[in-house]
């Protein structure tokens, strides 16, 4: 069933025909990260697709995937474009390499999952927290509820993980 929700006052809209995104966000709504695993080659993929990027097979099943990884790259937004984010600057957009399937099927591939840096309860991170995160920071997935049937996966600092002494940050600070 279609989903219409609001997140940070921003309308989110998933139509009936978009069965891949409906399934993805339904799992997120249960705070349970799932991705499609190819029924032919067994590789997991992100974001949702309608066939396998590696072997083109159409069939897949949704499997639980551990929401843990390290920041591969990021940007720190100071000038928001969307009104929804104007009150939240600076905010971080993170590309996170999941530990699951990292370096497969080839050396430079990874499940690189997008999210903002948030507090453990899924709120966009405050300035001090934004300043402490960079390339290499270990993060864990958390969810921000947006309405029935939908939550957005995000990232927060993994308190239980061994962190790099100094994650890499943009030098002009």
């Amino acid at each position, binding site marked *: 069933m279609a989903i219409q929700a609001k*997140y940070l006052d*921003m*309308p*989110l*809209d*998933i*139509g009936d025909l*978009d069965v891949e*995104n409906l399934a993805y*966000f339904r799992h997120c709504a249960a705070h349970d990260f799932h991705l499609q695993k190819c029924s032919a080659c067994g590789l997991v*993929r*992100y*974001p949702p*697709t309608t066939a396998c*990027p590696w072997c083109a097979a159409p069939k897949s099943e949704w499997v639980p995937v551990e929401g843990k990884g390290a920041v*591969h*790259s*990021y*940007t*720190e*937004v*100071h*000038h*928001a*474009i*969307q*009104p*929804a*984010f104007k009150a*939240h600057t600076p*905010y971080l*957009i993170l*590309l996170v390499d999941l530990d699951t399937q990292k370096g497969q099927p*080839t050396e*430079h*591939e*990874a*499940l*690189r999952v*997008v*999210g*903002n840096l948030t507090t453990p309860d899924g709120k966009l991170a405050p300035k001090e927290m934004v300043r402490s995160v960079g*390339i290499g920071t270990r993060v864990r997935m958390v969810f921000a509820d947006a309405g029935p049937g939908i939550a*957005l996966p995000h990232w927060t600092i993994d308190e239980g993980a061994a962190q790099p002494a100094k994650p*890499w940050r*943009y*030098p*002009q600070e």
Partner: protein
Amino acid sequence: MSMPAEADATSPKHLRDKYAIVGVGETTYMRGSGMTTRALGTWAVRNAIEDAGLKPSDVDGMLSYQSGDSTFSNFIAGDLGIRANFFMDVFGGGSSTEALVGMAMGLIEAGMCKVVVIFRAMNGFSQVRIGGTGARAVAPVSGDMLHSRAYGWQSAGQMFSPTFMRHMYDYGTRPEQVAAVKAIHSEHASNNPKAFYKERVSVAEVLASRIICKPLHLLDCCVETDNGTALVVTSAERARDCRHPRALIRGVVGRCSKPRLDMHYQHGPISTVAGHYAREILWPNAGVGPEDIDVTGSYDAFTFTTMLQLEDYGFCKKGEGGAYVSDGTIRLGGRRPNNTSGGHLCEGYTHGLNMVIENVRQLRHDADDSCPVGPDGKRQHTYDYREGGCRQVKKCELTANMGWANPGTGSAMVMRRD
């Protein structure tokens, strides 16, 4: 002129030098055009046809590109009295220019038409803001955008920055090296009476401008303007009858991509861009290499995009783009000037077309700067590159243009002077 020996190519080498750009045209680069994209397009196309020494009735093919923000070929054709044997308006922005030149060559080669106009008309400041503000910023988030816009990841700067950041991490690229691109392009623009921003800015001024999204300062980002731009492509043979020396097309590569076009970040290294793949088609098709090129035209939507393209097309070693763009090579008077018009950072934003126009003029040895016009109607270039002076590159014989849609998709073209 002599050309290096034949190299392997992935497309028929017999098209090398068989087509030419014979006309270039543009409107003023402005903010608040006060007219429709149809009027802008008509103005630019008319200028390009006149520049070629042709009449509208000589044109029988039309190509354009847009993102739901512009008029269509039909209306420009109607305004100018063009009856088309082929016309098509494609979806897309940056990376379209060179790709459509390649398509025009294919159309003429296939006998479908003879003279093709390519145009891009946009009110990128006063109607559909290229920076993504306005109506685009508040549209509902759905479909594939749920994995980007829902995270405040929407504008080109936001979307490309993970590539820029990772390049700094992987190779130690410094903010001041990349800022040199803006400083140098601004010097070029100061010698271009048409440029929207003609004022020279320093590296320090770029670094002192406010952060938009790291690593981009305000002055690392291009200008938003309203303008129309156009090219005329025809066969090298037909081109002999046109007004100017021919800009012959040596080789072209169009919309060449990295793996995972749906989300290129899934496939690394993410500090590598589409030029890494495109160069394997471009240089063999052109039969020349980066070391042969006199002038480059990069897609400077951002300072970083110039650095990444020049590096991945092989103008320097991988990882040395920061040094290449800041050591004087790309400045007028340097070994290989880049974006001599000021480009997107300073002249105006056209989704790539104005950098091709500039290189055609460089190849004609007729850059439209402030040098005096001689009795033959041509500028008498002084090659004095001080502010307000000349911007013609001495003995310009070979140029390369590089289009960019995003880190994962690019186009390119090599042209030579007849």
